[in-house]
């Protein structure tokens, strides 16, 4: 390879799902060749996978240039991505899955889309899929749109190209890489969705267990909280806390009312327990919100609420600032 500085860093996190390395590598190599810029490939092995590491080593022995980073245990795709990014030198970061989702020749479309965007997200179109998968995907993206007011078609597609500064600003963790476009949009980056052709070997034979659903739902909830309430926890907790408290108080008042006017004894009613539980719960949720506010308040100096695109000032051409300059020179002459 030439010695030109790397422009594109390709990060491939290798997790549980993966296809045979030879096929994948050939496909990506041919796709990347069409970019016609110097690039590097970084494999991040997420947890010990001896067989895969062996085939990588074999490939490297054949003189193929790439970096391999092995993580001690499985940290999740987002962490793998961030680790890979730490070793990336390019000004453009390209993430590709370790299994063939899209055809390699589609990579240059994403790269080209960066001309007018900070991150280009692929979505597979047309998509070969069963009706149930399609329904589930629509439900997921619909729910996400409801929560974040942002519309995406295919967040499951991990083929993405982005500018370096985007990953410098957004720290991902856990399973958040799926929501990278959402977080990017919140940070004021320009997000573009690019239709890419699905690879023929992209078959989705994962079986969705209730656990997967629960996880997806929790993910959306986390994003919802991150996007809407990170800076105002009391708005979130306060709402829930006050509502719970109010229900408890109303129930208590009703019980007291019955005790006074219908003399049904207060002491023997289990409903009293429920009322006091609700009141107490309300107060505690509210207190959690207060703690959240305290965290925000005491750390507000470190985390800014806004992202500045650029600061502009032209010190050169200036009819007005010529004035102090003129005064200065005249002073000099007098002195």
């Amino acid at each position: 390879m030439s010695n030109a500085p790397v422009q594109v860093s390709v990060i491939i996190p290798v997790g549980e799902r993966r296809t045979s390395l030879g096929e994948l590598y050939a496909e990506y190599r041919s796709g990347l060749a069409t970019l016609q810029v110097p690039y590097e490939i970084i494999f991040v092995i997420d947890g010990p996978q001896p067989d895969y590491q062996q085939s990588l080593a074999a490939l490297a022995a054949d003189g193929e240039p790439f970096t391999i980073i092995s993580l001690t245990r499985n940290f999740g795709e987002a962490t793998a991505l961030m680790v890979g990014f730490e070793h990336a030198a390019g000004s453009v970061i390209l993430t590709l899955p370790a299994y063939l989702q899209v055809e390699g020749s589609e990579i240059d479309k994403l790269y080209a889309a960066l001309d007018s965007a900070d991150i280009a997200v692929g979505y597979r179109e047309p998509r070969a899929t069963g009706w149930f998968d399609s329904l589930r995907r629509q439900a997921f993206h619909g729910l996400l749109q409801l929560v974040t007011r942002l519309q995406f078609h295919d967040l499951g597609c991990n083929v993405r190209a982005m500018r370096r500064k985007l990953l410098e600003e957004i720290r991902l963790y856990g399973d958040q890489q799926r929501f990278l476009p959402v977080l990017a949009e919140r940070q004021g980056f320009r997000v573009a969705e690019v239709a890419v052709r699905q690879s023929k070997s992209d078959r989705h034979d994962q079986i969705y267990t209730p656990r997967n659903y629960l996880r997806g739902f929790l993910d959306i909830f986390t994003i919802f909280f991150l996007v809407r309430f990170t800076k105002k926890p009391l708005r979130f907790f306060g709402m829930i806390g006050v509502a719970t408290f109010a229900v408890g108080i109303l129930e208590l008042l009703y019980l007291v009312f019955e005790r006074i006017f219908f003399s049904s004894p207060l002491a023997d009613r289990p409903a009293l327990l429920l009322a006091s539980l609700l009141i107490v719960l309300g107060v505690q949720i509210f207190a959690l919100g207060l703690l959240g506010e305290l965290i925000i308040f005491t750390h507000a100096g470190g985390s800014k609420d806004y992202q500045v695109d650029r600061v502009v000032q032209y010190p050169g051409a200036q009819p007005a600032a010529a004035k102090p300059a003129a005064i200065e020179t005249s002073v000099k002459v007098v002195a």
Partner: protein
Amino acid sequence: MYSLPKLSVIVPFYNEEDSIGPMHAAIVQAVEPLHIAYEMVFVDDGSQDSTAARADEIARQDARVRLVKFRRNYGQTAAMAAGIQYAMGEILVTMDGDLQNDPTDIARLLAKMAEGYDMVVGWRYKRQDKLLSRKVPSVIANRLISKVTGVSITDNGCSLKAFRASVIKNIPLYSEMHRFIPAMASIAGPRIAELKVKHHARQFGKSKYGLSRIYKVLLDLMVIKTISSFTSRPLLWFSLLCVPLTLIGFLALAGGLLAAVPAGGRLSLPLTGSGIIFLTAAVTLTASGTLGELIYKLGDVRPEDFARLTKELRAPQERAGSP
């Protein structure tokens, strides 16, 4: 090159393409006769119209204009906070970008500041806005804010304010706190004055606020109240929350025990149970308070810094006297 400006005029713009030119001219016209070094910090809050382009043009022609461009729209508080962050003057004046504030008031604000105040807040005593949708809610909100925060300001919504940079730069501004800057600043204990300022009817564009903000104002008010009263002593504050819970808990418990006497020693589960629940909650709340102390200890906001600041500031100020 040039000495640091003494005055920074901070103006956030959001979709104000017609106002930005006249605004710049009006500021220059108003401040130029004062013969002080000054700068203008224009914040473009992610406008979608040609505001940014026009601001750029103005900056090109006037070196005293610094333009801070946001990546997207973040709201007025963020714009103000950024303007304050990027301003270099000793005294900062903030105003709206919609021409409703009058830059000729800047001279009077500065005169008031020279009397030794750390913050001078504008009061739009002849407000030119719609009565029902803007003025009436505003009056109610201001009464409420004064009452709750204990900082008596007639018009919190007025953007035309002057600050001593060293005081305001240390106050965290986030969320939608711009309405509460005086209350927020009161943590630092500055001397605040009010000044009647002019207010014009809107010439261009349209208002970006509606009635929907009332709900947000109420919640933010609650936040401000709690924060300004409990910042430096979360444990105390949480313990205060515990007091009613403990009282109710003991009453319920006592009631349950007393009721057991005529019933031949049979305890009433709901009543004693409720008592125990309330007492447990009091304990957990105290624990939360301790957690709060920890958070506060680890955080970077320290009122003692504010105290030192305002104290140091005042001494020379009082010597200088009023002009």
